[in-house]
């Protein structure tokens, strides 16, 4: 069996054991203000930032989008839709999907979300406009800190999203909106 022969070959060939370095807890970079750094990095990755001071204002923002005739799927409210509700909708036609972001990363402007926030995995990718609601106090400095908080064993799928989907495969010209969302908005909640 290939499994055994591969393992046997590794054991026969592997170099002498080398130790692990001491883990890095946090980066040395000094940022004046985490929120400010996060906003800078997110913007440079093509994200739109809207600072908002209450969940009610988030609702108002969503209602405004709907009144513009947009199809909005909002999963940020307390009574989240059930799997059944989700399965009967054709998300390929959704204009806007609004999800809760768990953590923001100041060093790169990315937001972590996992399966619990999206219910079905294709949701953040299929929509043309993804909106993430993120509390300002959930912005951490760097990836070391964030990974310490992420519990991978208790989720099936999780993703860092840093802006709208993009490509530079044609002569390195940056084009926003490759296969996923064309717009990416972060509603920063204080």
């Amino acid at each position, binding site marked *: 069996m290939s499994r055994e022969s591969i393992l046997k070959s590794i054991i026969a060939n592997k170099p002498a054991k*080398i130790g*692990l370095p001491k883990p890095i807890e946090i980066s040395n*970079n000094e940022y004046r203000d985490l929120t400010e750094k996060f906003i800078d990095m997110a913007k440079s990755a093509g994200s739109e930032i809207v600072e908002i001071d209450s969940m009610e204002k988030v609702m108002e923002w969503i209602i405004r989008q709907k009144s513009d005739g947009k199809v909005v799927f909002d999963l940020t409210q307390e009574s989240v839709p059930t*799997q059944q509700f989700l399965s009967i909708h054709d998300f390929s036609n959704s204009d806007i999907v609004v999800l809760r972001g768990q953590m923001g990363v100041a060093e790169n402007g990315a937001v972590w979300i996992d399966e619990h926030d999206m219910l079905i995995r294709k949701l953040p990718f299929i929509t043309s406009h993804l909106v993430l609601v993120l509390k300002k106090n959930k912005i951490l400095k760097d990836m070391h800190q964030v990974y310490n908080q992420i519990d991978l064993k208790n989720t099936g799928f999780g993703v860092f999203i840093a802006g709208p989907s993009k*490509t530079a*495969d044609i002569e390195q010209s940056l084009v926003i909106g490759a296969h996923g969302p064309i717009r990416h908005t972060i509603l920063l909640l204080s």
Partner: protein
Amino acid sequence: MKHSQAAKVFLKNAPRTQWHDKALWFAREKRDIQKNQVTEWETLRDHASQIKEHALSNLDDYLMEFEQNAIGNGIVVHWASDAEEHNRIVFNILQKAGVRKLVKSKSMLTEECRMNPYLENKGIEVIESDLGERIIQLDKQEPSHIVMPAIHMKKEEIGKLFEKELHTETGNNDPQYLTAAARSHLRKHFLSAEVALTGVNFAIAETGGFVVCTNEGNADMGVHHARIHIASMGIEKLIPKKEHLAVFIRLLARSATGQPITNYTSHFQKPEKGKEIHIILVDNGRSEHLGEEKFWRALKCIRCGACMNTCPVYRRSGGHSYGYTIPGPIGSILTPKIDLKQFADLPFASSLCGSCSDVCPVKIDIHEQLYQWRQEVYEHGHLSWIKKTGFRVVGKILASPRLYGLTGTIARFFLIYAPGFLVYNRMNTWGKSRDIPTLPRQSFQEWYKENRNKS
């Protein structure tokens, strides 16, 4: 074809070579800007290197730990000794599912395994979904770079290709327009995907999951629509713990494209309800490579492509000139292990300037290995006779101070007074595209003798 011959073809079009050179240097510059914003960049590189060396020196244990945790997560784990076995496993999964189409995102491993032609021969339609890869696939080419597969193509060529294949407007070469055309073309395939394949950037022993990084979101679009997700990974992609991801994610995109992080960094732990994830652990020569005392560290590679972007030879010869899936400096130290004779010229496709080792995020001693591979090529008798004879003669001269002095005098006389055709001929491969610098009439030794007593 030898690298130098293929490079010669590439170099025929001078403006295009210059454009290619600049395009890749642009990526190097973007990388520098990002790297300079991380104060502990060098510490990160040290960590990444050490974590990889640790993982490789305990690879059997970590593979078993990964396997156990992955199975616990509901992932099906397959092992493939070689390319053929990998391809067969993919085909069997498709066949069992009764599916004739595979939507895939970028995977250098499947290129290495020549999977697409294998599946196509068996009647499977393979759809590449990364824009660069799709361009290459439609044009029936090979990728010339591991991160930017179509970096050698001009937008005019892509415009023409899309006109023919995707019926875009005649003469419209706008990247925005062409990308939008590819978006709607590939969306059909995503929505109808039943089986999707991705590569793997990192697999984590501790969690039994794996990470896939893209900017376009094509990996996610494929696998989340499909019922079955196949992930192909080389066994060297394994890292021990979740916390190590922080180190590698911080380095990867900054080194590759000069972004602080890729747009999507997706962590797959368990299949979605009612779906399947299969992971194929591929050896294909890697376990044997581990036994190469001087060369095993090449397996630390995380496939960022930074060594290509910085390499003065790669930038001016193009990825295709290397004749292998992974070109550039890293390709030139991986290929000799695959077939020393076939790739004997690649360790010489370098100026040994060391820039590749300087930018490598996992600190592979690339230029040192290039130098070591040259010795192997010589020892196994794969050196061309011009190089062999040349080195033998130069070796003798450099070993004897008297011969060295004499040769210098003769060479200075010859190069100053001999007619051009005697200096630049078939034997002088160095002089084919270079002028020999103007030589002084006196050697340093002669000058020193004359001047040492002057105050």
